[in-house]
């Protein structure tokens, strides 16, 4: 089964909030590197982290994350 890659609008969402990667990371309890890797599509976050980011950025989960290639 082909591995699913997660794409995201995280960078736009956090910039809209005026947050840096480090600020975003601190708000959801992960490292800055993890936020950076999510933004460049090099890390697939868990659903728990996805929900935390959606809540923090006040975006819908479906608007913030999707399967790569489906949008």
């Amino acid at each position, binding site marked *: 089964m082909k591995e699913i890659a997660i794409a995201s609008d995280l960078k736009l969402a956090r910039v809209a909030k005026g947050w840096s990667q480090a600020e975003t990371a601190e708000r959801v309890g*992960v*490292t800055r590197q993890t936020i950076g890797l999510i933004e460049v599509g090099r890390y697939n976050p868990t659903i728990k*982290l996805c929900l935390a980011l959606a809540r923090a950025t006040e975006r819908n989960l479906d608007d913030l994350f999707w399967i790569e290639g489906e949008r």
Partner: protein
Amino acid sequence: MMLFEKLERDERTFAAGGQVAGIWLGITHVLLAGVIFYRLYILGQPDEELRDVQTILAISLFGHMITQLFLGGLLPVPTWRGMIVGYGVLAGTIASVCLAIYGVPEAAQWQNTWLPTLVGPALFIGLYRLVAWLGRRRIESLIGD
């Protein structure tokens, strides 16, 4: 005075750390087994001199396998056919290597030669299947099926 930056851990670093640990554990197991084989069968050192290393390898190997199986779904559960094939490959490999090194053993020495060669793999595969089955049963009970 801080000597290092604060080490931050999150789901990604824990996952990466787990993968790295698993890879290097596997490499360590292979290297230890290679050292034991080399010292026993190439250098001809007595078995007693390697008991400590063999014990550590056995504890690490079985502890790792049993923990992974019991936590559930982390290692494949063999089918009956898989167990028979696995037994054949394992026993056949051990027998072939021993025959190549020591030749055909004397019939009177069957307890030290054929018995461990035929029974050992059976015990190993049987234990693997049992722990895998127990681990799967544990996961199914958590799901509530």
